[in-house]
């Protein structure tokens, strides 16, 4: 009798908490849904349904990809390509830099290794934005203003990527390396053919970290690129927003494009490698 009553009580509590979770989730998702629906309908319809709020505010009367087509055929389309180029170049160079450093800091033994590791990780943890302004002045002195390389370089050093890869390399049994060295393999060979093939998820994770950092970059491209034909997508979108404030539809479509790419990236990498630990800052 009491057991039954207790169960119904805990069930009632579970229903209440679920209802609360639904309300909280709705608060967060509704603006995003509004963004999505706005990207699929003409701007004047967004305007017309701003106020008062009805179900029409969220549900378009007809779905069209017009905003996306108009957006991608304009300067934003070019900027998206530049963003991709910057991100892939940064991931490629960044992975090489991080893997080399992580190998040296986990497998090779030399005096002061711990101190070098601490130095590397800490120096990359200082927020980049704080030094972006002085760095952009150095870059203009080095002739890197308005170049692809200028956009790429600040993203190649990622302390978290080095940290992740090092943790993973430490978990690979040293006997593998011993075996390879006995066979006469030099260190670059060991890294390339023993450690990297075993790096799967950790490499994907580091690639994702580097990619996400570059994809959403705004301040740095603003500082180092003035030529609008070389501008990355977030800055290009902000510019269209400033110039054509009334074309909400295209602005919304741009925001959706910028959001879908990293989401897809996470999804694909998760599918292939599983167990991505974006939230593993604590480990």
């Amino acid at each position, binding site marked *: 009798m009491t057991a039954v009553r207790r169960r119904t009580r805990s069930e009632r509590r*579970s229903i209440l*908490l679920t209802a*609360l*979770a639904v309300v*909280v989730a*709705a608060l*967060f*998702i509704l*603006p*995003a849904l*509004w963004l999505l629906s706005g990207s699929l309908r003409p701007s004047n319809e967004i305007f017309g349904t*701003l*106020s008062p709020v009805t179900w029409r*505010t969220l549900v378009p009367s007809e779905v069209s990809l017009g905003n996306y087509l108009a957006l991608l055929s304009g300067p934003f389309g070019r900027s998206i390509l530049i963003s991709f180029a910057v991100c892939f170049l940064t991931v490629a160079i960044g992975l090489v*830099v*991080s893997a*080399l*450093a992580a190998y*040296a800091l986990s497998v*090779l*033994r030399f005096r002061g290794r711990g101190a*070098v590791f601490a130095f*590397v990780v800490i120096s*990359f943890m*200082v*927020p980049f*934005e*704080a*030094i972006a*302004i*002085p*760095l952009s*002045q150095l870059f203009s002195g080095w002739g890197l203003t308005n170049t692809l390389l200028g956009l790429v370089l600040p993203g*190649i*050093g990622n302390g978290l990527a*080095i940290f992740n890869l090092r943790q993973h390399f430490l978990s690979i049994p*040293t*006997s593998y390396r*011993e075996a390879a060295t006995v066979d006469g393999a030099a260190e670059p060979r060991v*890294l390339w053919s023993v450690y990297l093939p075993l790096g799967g998820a950790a490499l994907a994770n580091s690639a994702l970290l580097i990619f996400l950092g570059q*994809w*959403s970059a*705004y*301040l740095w491209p603003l500082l180092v690129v003035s030529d609008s034909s070389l501008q990355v997508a*977030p*800055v290009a*979108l*902000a510019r269209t*927003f400033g110039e054509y404030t009334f074309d*909400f539809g295209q*602005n*919304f479509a741009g*925001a959706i494009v910028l*959001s879908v790419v*990293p989401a897809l990236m996470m999804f694909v990498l998760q599918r292939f490698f599983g167990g991505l630990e*974006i*939230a*593993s*800052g*604590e480990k």
Partner: protein
Amino acid sequence: MSRSSSAVSAAPSGAQRRLGASPAPRRQLRRRKELFWAVVFLAPALVAIGSLRIAPTISAVVSSLYSGFPGGVRPPVFSGFDNYLDLWGNEAFRETVLRTVVFNVIINPLQVAIALLVAVLMTRRIAAPGLWRTLVFIPAVVPIVGSSIVWSIALRPDGPVNAIITALGGRPQPFLTSPDQALASIMLIASWIGIGYWMIFLISGLRAIPSEYYEAAKLDRAGPIRTFFQITIPLLKRPLLFVLVADTVANFVLFVPIQMLTNGGPQNSTTMQMFNAYRTTYTYSSKNLGAAEVVILTIIMLVFVALQFRLLRDDDRAAKGTS
């Protein structure tokens, strides 16, 4: 770890000693080789740190000690701490610093507290927790440029937020166009993005707490509130500290919504240090003064982070001392 591997590597050299080869030079050769490769492998990362992190830091400090002439035709001259004294004497700058500090004192604990409450809710026994969790996280995937656009339209005087307020019987609010509400609106935008993101870290921290603690609390007939304060919070201290520090760093350099939506206004009410340093350097092209502002921003941010470490660490020790 390294001890066991050195035992492995010692074995062949021990065998060679029996065969008559001299072991010491061989080991030395090997060690020298490892050092050589360590230098080669670390070089790209160290060059990156040197040129992309240390050089700009030094150049900011040095540049802040010079006084330049707007336009930059004449070279800047050394002026010691003049830039800092000028800033100290400038009321608008003092207000900017104060505004940045107030903004951070409010937004960081608030975001972390809400993220914690949501994380606790999402780890309770509820239907389809994964779905609600994903929905709360989605705003963190929208790039901040996109979120700024959405909210600037949502918060327009004739926008949907005001429509909802009116429907509920309230009066429409000016939000971003009012000096009294603009900063709070920026906080709202930053929190819409941040809370779901930090929630993910806190959920994985909550999951790491062994369930025995909660069972023991249940046996002690501790209510949910007591359990929360005496078990959840103390055992979540490390993830909480991490999230608080990371959030603080992110909010001290918050830039995009301010540059895009308010340009520091209205009436400077959203001008914070990061945006101010950008404006001084680029809009007013006073590079040296801008460098001094960057240095001050960095120092204040580091002080904040150090204080947070101190606070949570000391708490930790005190808790251990009493138990």
